[in-house]
């Protein structure tokens, strides 16, 4: 875009309609997504805490709160239908509505993964009794995986607030950290000296690690949608290294 054709500020992408009610409807949809995102991050952190601290009550709280995310997902769908039916969105508005709909789906599925981690925490507690099933190095590796996944998801939701391309780019750049942490956990669980764990315990821990990785993947999906809204480019399935380089080249 040139001086005669200035880009709209990212923070202003959803606003400025002549019909102000339209702005309010888009803001409401986005607020639902942001609330979902906050819940997901909270749920994921609580679920991992339940896992590493062997805290039943924390795990049950995650299970109890999980339906909130589902209900918000239904609210988001309803708002998407309403906006499409009433406003027939085009251009950036259409991209926002489509993207927020997909982001709601990603957030809902990420919430499911947190629930799975909590369920596995309860299962491990049942299998292990009072004995500590996590060696220090495994505990630390799981902590790194949780940190990578949750920090990616947290930032992806922050990126939605202002459709922030730079923040989305940072999430893409963080993907190797998630991958490395996941690999580390899997290696530790595969080592001979983890023999103290039963096969069922190992499966439970692998399921938890997989759930955390998936939360990070959902964060990446959300970041892709943010870029779709802000730049009008569908970057799904693109080579990540080339995408990162291209975005840097564009000044992000």
């Amino acid at each position: 875009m040139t001086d005669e054709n200035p880009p709209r500020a990212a923070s202003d992408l959803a606003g400025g309609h002549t019909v102000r009610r339209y702005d309010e409807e888009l803001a409401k949809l986005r607020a639902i997504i942001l609330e979902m995102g906050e819940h997901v991050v909270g749920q994921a952190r609580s679920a991992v805490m339940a896992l590493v601290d062997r805290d039943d009550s924390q795990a049950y709280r995650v299970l109890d709160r999980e339906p909130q995310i589902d209900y918000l997902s239904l609210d988001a769908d309803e708002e998407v239908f309403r906006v499409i039916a009433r406003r027939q969105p085009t251009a950036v508005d259409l991209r926002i509505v489509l993207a927020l709909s997909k982001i709601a789906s990603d957030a809902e599925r990420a919430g499911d993964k947190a629930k799975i981690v909590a369920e596995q925490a309860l299962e491990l507690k049942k299998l292990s009794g009072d004995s500590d099933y996590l060696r220090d190095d495994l505990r630390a590796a799981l902590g790194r995986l949780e940190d990578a996944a949750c920090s990616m998801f947290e930032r992806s939701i922050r990126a939605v607030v202002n459709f922030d391309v730079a923040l989305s780019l940072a999430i893409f750049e963080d993907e190797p950290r998630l991958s490395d942490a996941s690999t580390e956990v899997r290696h530790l669980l595969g080592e001979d000296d983890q023999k103290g764990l039963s096969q069922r315990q190992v499966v439970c821990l692998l399921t938890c690690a997989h759930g955390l990785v998936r939360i990070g993947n959902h964060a990446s999906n959300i970041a892709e949608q943010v870029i779709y809204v802000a730049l009008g480019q569908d970057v799904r399935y693109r080579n990540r290294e080339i995408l990162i380089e291209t975005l840097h080249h564009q000044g992000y």
Partner: protein
Amino acid sequence: MSTVVEVMEKTTGAMSSAELAGEQHSRATVGDFTVADARMACREVEVWYGPKKAINGVSLDIGKNEVLSMIGPSGCGKSTFLRCLNRMNDTIDGCRVTGSILLDGQDIYDKSLDPVPLRARVGMVFQKPNPFPKSIYENVAYGPKIHGLTNNRAELDALVESSLRKAGLWDEVKDRLDQAGTGLSGGQQQRLCIARTIAVSPEVILMDEPCSALDPIATAIVEELIDELRSQYSIAIVTHSMQQAARVSQRTAYFHLGDLIEIGETNDIFTSPKHRLTEDYITGRFG
């Protein structure tokens, strides 16, 4: 880029055209305004109403078998531009057109070209249905008669029927061809006007908000008709309905204050327009 052809040599007052042009530079159009198989090619078209410039150096092609929609806020010049395409602006006192507009390579503003047969080749359908106060049959037969397109009554009957069929009206009126065209519903009247346009074998059909006076059902029928007509004609449509532009056209041109701001594939314009003004307009942020 082409020779400037002045259609109406009128005095524009104390200020010269050059001085006026110097005050208002045309903006660069975003998007490729050319097509591979152009039926009409417009280059650097300017339209002046006395000293006031209404169209500011617009260049675009209208392809064969395509519907080009022209959108923009009121006063942006889209209807003025449309009316240049069959020299309807000739009838406005003080209006002059510069630049070049070619129909199949022929300059339609060439001084030797008669605008009457041109308007048969480039037909027009208006905002408000305007059937002649004659029978349905005569409404369609009138053009072919004055242009001498048929040799006898049988040929004329066949042409009337084929035109009404193409306009999707035949089955509704075949038993009452002698009744007044003005007695039809609004949607039927508009399709009668389209049949009247088709009857003189145009190459291009211009439509100036053809559905703005119609209800949604009649609008849907006319839109379906536009899609069918595309296989035989080039169509340029001015519309205030963004949804209509999105539904019926393959390419869309956005006008703003006499400039062609952006032109491109309709899918692209309505999902990822490149110009901020286009986006503001189609998303309802304009003004």
